[in-house]
């Protein structure tokens, strides 16, 4: 589904990603962990198409298409979704209006009929229930005045509405209380199928108890320096990153 080869990216001439390689297949869950500032969010943003980052080397294939060649909106229409670490507040733009625009643009792109008002409202009802998002929030301005946890739930609500093939969840667990964590993780699990894939970026093993990964990768200093199975996350939780840094720097 996703194949990243030797990806290098810079911001303001500072190289942040220094040769990332990653293969994600349909049906898989990958976890990416790593110390603060190692480049996890940068990788997510580069994949989503943020213009500030300059890709200097490497390639990304997404379902047979050259991802880096697509505009951000077309990446989303092709089935990529990023749940942001810091969701943006957009005063005056209603959540509902924005999602309707997004869904209908995607449908048009795939030469499908636009959603009827009834169909759309049905989806809103079903998907907001999935993440137990208060229906009042759905009609408010995008993220405006939402609590940290509400913003994260809203990300998963949008993901549920858009039904992506590949979801990247950038620290969706941070800022969630224990109950919310379970709710969000359940939502993600219910949306999982053999046709889609999930990349979860997290600092905490706790989330991985709920969303069980097939593979765990450690991103350090712009590179994936170690990959393993879910046991690697347990090891990191216990020992921290120092031993990995030592291995890399040795």
């Amino acid at each position, binding site marked *: 589904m996703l194949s990243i080869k030797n990806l290098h990216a810079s911001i303001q001439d500072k190289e942040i990603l220094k040769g990332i390689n990653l293969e994600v297949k349909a049906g898989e869950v990958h976890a990416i962990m790593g110390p603060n500032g190692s480049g996890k969010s940068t990788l997510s943003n580069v994949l989503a198409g943020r213009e500030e980052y300059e890709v200097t080397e490497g390639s990304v294939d997404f379902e047979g298409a050259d991802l880096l060649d697509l505009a951000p*909106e077309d990446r989303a229409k092709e089935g990529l979704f990023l749940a942001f670490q810091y969701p943006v507040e957009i005063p005056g733009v209603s959540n509902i209006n924005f999602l309707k625009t997004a869904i209908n643009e995607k449908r048009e792109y795939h030469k499908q009929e636009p959603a009827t008002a009834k169909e759309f409202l049905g989806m809103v009802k079903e998907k907001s229930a999935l993440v137990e998002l208060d229906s009042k929030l759905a009609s408010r301005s995008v993220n405006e005045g939402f609590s940290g946890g509400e913003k994260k739930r809203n990300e998963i609500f949008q993901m549920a509405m858009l039904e992506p093939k590949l979801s990247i969840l950038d620290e969706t667990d941070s800022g969630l209380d224990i109950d919310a964590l379970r709710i969000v993780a359940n939502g993600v699990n219910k949306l999982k199928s053999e046709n889609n894939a999930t990349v979860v970026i997290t600092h905490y093993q706790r989330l991985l108890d709920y969303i069980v990964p097939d593979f765990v990768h450690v991103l350090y200093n712009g590179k994936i320096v170690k990959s393993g199975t879910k046991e690697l996350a347990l090891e990191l939780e216990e020992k921290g990153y120092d031993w990995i840094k030592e291995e890399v720097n040795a």
Partner: protein
Amino acid sequence: MIADLTKKDSLLASLSSLNFSDENEYFADLRNKAKAELETLEFPTSKTEYWKYTRVGKIVNKSYNIAKVEDIDITPYLIPGLNANILVLVNGFYKANLSKIDAQDGITVLPLSEAKNLAQLNAKFCSLTTNKEEVFLAVNNAYHTDGIYIEVANNTIATKAYHILNITTGNNVIALSRNVIIGGKSSQVKVIESFINENGNENFVNNVSEIFVGENANVEYNKIQDKSNDNYHISTEQVYQEANSNFTINTATFNGAIVRNNLNIWVDASNCETNLSGLYLGQNKDHIDNHTVVDHMKPNCNSNEVYKGVLDHESTGVFNGKVFVRQDAQITNAFQQNNNILLTDTANVNSKPELEIYADDVKCSHGSTTGQIDEEAIFYLQSRGISKRNAMKLMINAFAKDALANISITALADFIDTKIEERFTK
């Protein structure tokens, strides 16, 4: 000798063909007084404080002609779904054949030239425009051609809105229209005036409206400016409010090489409500200037002002909003706000909200912001599959929305929404 002609002389020379000999002595005298005042006035320069950010050189260095036009197709300029009385002015002259008025008891609607035969006009006419030391106002006082007179009698509610189509057509035309709107005691009326240009280059409209809002009356005036990129418009509304009255003005400006709106509101009685809103969307080299004054002279009044600008390309926006709270005007609530978005590095804004307060028991606030469109928000919307263009549209609509929230005519609000959408769907 040609060389001795000043710019003012040559502009006035282009008006010399106008003939007002039909008018009665009273109005002839008013014109003569205005001409005398004009002798003492000059066009503003960069040193004139009130005109500091708007240079009128481009307007006054040209020569213009007066042009009467027989027929014109107004259908493209009607507002879809709006059931209103239609009043048509072309190049400053009233077109009875194109207008369509449903008579209503208690409402007098006439071309101004005919209204000058009504005795009740005398006391009001020019009462808000004489000796204001504004040269363009004085030009209109002296040389206005025709316009619309609407008088709503006491206790009368206008059942339909009045839509004035103020059209210019032909090249280098000067149009000097003049309206008088009188809302009697406990009356209600809604007026729309659309300023439109049809295939004409370098036209200059210098129009004036005097609006009298009687005791307990409710008057809404909506102004749509949609001229093309090389047309000039200097526009003045002088508004006088009596006790317990409510006045709302909404100004939407979509275009214009130079647009200057002078809005002056005297709130000369207690318990009044005043709403002033504006939205201006500049593009190319447009220059759009809104100068407003709200003069609170008596206690217990509220005024609410919101102007918003979106400036693209190399366009310029100017906002100068002044609120006076006189010594007698205790318990005044005056709120004023101007927000701008610049879409390019070459667009710019001069924003100056001003408060002058001489009373002590008042609640007043003012603020001004100018910024870029939030790129992070655009990216967020794009990352959900929304094209950049639609993302901009969502953002700009969100920004502009409350600027015109006071328009109570649904068909007009929809029409303006559509125009905003069209602008950002290129």
